[in-house]
């Protein structure tokens, strides 16, 4: 991890900041990142306090927990209350409130069997150890996480595990970016593209950003120097009026992504309409299990439906996710809405933009 320290080198960061300032040359730049890890990295490293005043940092719909819709939370809370069902989930879903403020933590306290796993494969071990129960893995995440879930489904099939299924609530990044840019009120001038998601996707799925919307898109890593380099490239593209989608994270991301992971994904999943918190339904922005794998699809196997839930009153997470406002501009921020008592999705997860503002900004 010497590498990590090298990309945190203060001199390197300062020379990149100089380059950014030169590229900006009195112009302003509103960039959006769409990855919770970027959100946290920008705040946690203190990079935000060093950015030129002309640069506005917006956090888009990049935290998988934050964009999980109320109706989806209601569906998995419904599951957690059922007999002979074990819910296997990544830890950060435990505190996400559904309608009425209930969470998996509450369900757990009332006796629901909820197990935190670190890999979807751990859920298979649970299924093997509890043959009389149905183990449901909550498939939440973007293109980074989904292939590991596909690999788990493949393994379950090979091991003939009949009591394992997946509630697929996966989301896809590129359709969300398109929706943001199609909105006439969108103020995003450039995208810092997600490093992890791009290891799978490569560059092609983002090509429309520059081609159709003339917006730069730069795949960036997560260390301060990685992020600064990506910002420099954006600013230079804007200066030169030459928007393009480029890879500034070649030590992890191949321009063609990971075709093997994508093939596995396509074997088990197909695109489907999906609900995003704060945004609503985005066509073909989710992943559903293909009909031939119905027996491993929790939606069908356990007869789940996504209930209609009313939007949260007063909460402006939708505007935050779309880059129209920054979290402190929401009237609920830090008052009615805090990490202890989150009203909206962006305050729920530690990788949400409101939570990051609350946690890292000096008052």
């Amino acid at each position: 991890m010497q590498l990590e320290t090298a990309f945190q080198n203060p001199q390197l960061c300062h020379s990149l900041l100089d380059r950014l300032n030169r590229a900006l040359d009195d112009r302003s730049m509103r960039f959006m990142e769409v990855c919770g890890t970027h959100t946290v990295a920008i705040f946690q490293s203190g990079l935000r306090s060093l950015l030129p005043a002309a640069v506005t940092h917006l956090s888009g719909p990049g935290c998988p927990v934050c964009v999980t819709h109320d109706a989806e939370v209601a569906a998995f809370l419904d599951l957690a209350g059922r007999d002979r069902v074990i819910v296997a989930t990544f830890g950060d879903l435990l505190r996400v409130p559904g309608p009425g403020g209930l969470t998996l933590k509450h369900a757990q306290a009332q006796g629901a069997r909820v197990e935190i796993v670190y890999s979807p494969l751990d859920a298979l071990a649970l299924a093997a150890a509890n043959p009389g129960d149905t183990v449901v893995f909550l498939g939440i995440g973007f293109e980074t996480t989904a292939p590991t879930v596909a690999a788990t489904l493949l393994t379950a099939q090979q091991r003939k595990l009949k009591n394992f299924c997946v509630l697929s609530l996966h989301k896809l990044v590129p359709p969300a970016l398109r929706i943001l840019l199609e909105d006439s009120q969108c103020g995003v001038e450039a995208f810092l593209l997600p490093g992890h998601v791009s290891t799978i996707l490569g560059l092609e799925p983002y090509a429309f950003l520059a081609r159709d919307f003339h917006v730069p898109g730069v795949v960036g890593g997560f260390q301060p120097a990685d992020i600064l380099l990506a910002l420099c490239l954006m600013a230079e593209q804007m200066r030169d009026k030459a928007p393009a989608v480029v890879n500034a994270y070649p030590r992890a991301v191949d321009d063609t992504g990971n075709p093997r992971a994508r093939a596995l994904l396509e074997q088990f999943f197909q695109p489907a309409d999906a609900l995003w918190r704060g945004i609503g339904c985005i066509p073909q922005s989710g992943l559903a299990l293909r009909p031939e794998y119905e027996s491993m699809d929790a939606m069908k196997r356990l007869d789940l439906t996504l209930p209609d839930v009313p939007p949260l009153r007063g909460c402006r997470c939708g505007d935050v996710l779309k880059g129209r406002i920054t979290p402190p501009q929401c009237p609920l921020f830090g008052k009615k809405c805090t990490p202890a008592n989150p009203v909206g999705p962006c305050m729920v997860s530690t990788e949400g933009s409101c939570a990051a503002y609350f946690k890292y900004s000096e008052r």
Partner: protein
Amino acid sequence: MDDCLLLDAGSGGRASQRLITQCFMRHFANPLLERMDDAALLTDLTGPLAMSTDSYTVTPLFFAGGSIGSLAVHGTVNDVAMLGARPRYLSCGFILEEGLSLETLERVVADMGAAAREAGVSIVTGDTKVVPRGACDKIFINTTGIGQVFASPAPSGHNARPGDAVLVSGAMGDHGLTVMGSREGLSFLTDVASDSAPLNHMIEDIINTVGEVHVLRDPTRGGLATTLNEIAEQSQVSIVLDEVSVPVHEAVRNGCSFLGMDPLYLANEGKCICIVPEAHAEAALAAMRRSPYGKEAARIGSVAEGKAQVALQTRIGGRRLLGMLEGAQLPRIC
């Protein structure tokens, strides 16, 4: 002895007697305990006294660097020591689950005995309850410690003053990550071990060396960040930390980076935060480094006037709030 613990062992009858003499007495041996009266008679303490209690539940019971037994002694000894006191006596209460392997119990009790001997404290009174299977998780231990305060005035979280130096006695996050790793079977966390250790001798040396110690705290649950926030709040001061100076072992840094956790919020069981007037900073650090448990002691920041909050000067020269967490850290999705 039978192989596993029966409810009889908590009945107060002969089965209880056997457990006490064959296990507890053997490992805790000291004249006060051996009198077997209803309470221990302490005749050599004069005020002011410091007293602290803590209950210990940890899964798994044994982990790299310690066990629930060593933890139950170190945790309470350290809490008493943080008041500038010399810990002398401990009580211990066990709540044991029926069916517990006696070999496991004996290993835990042996660890407690060894930890108490190293710390120079005596376990002088105790209690054992055995509860039906499922009513507790194997072993719960409560210990209460009492010690004589020799620092004057006693260090306190209320005493941080603008201009003071903030020191830590070693690397942050070892215990928290180790226990989480062994609980969850995270096989990639092989190079981490709990820092569980008695700090009382080191504390005594620090106080004897520098005299004026404003704050001593052990950053256990919630870690360094949480404890510093508590101090900032109690003393109504601002604390500025220098990220580069905070010691964190590389294995912990890597493990945390992978899991999306922050070592500054992970528990420590053998480290202290020491806040002293600037003029005493070097002497206090030297005293820490004389102890086997303070070799990696470092100066990590300063106390300033201002809002009661903790700010972090980051590696790249930025600055941000180092706040309190809402609850436990949870590993993230990606």
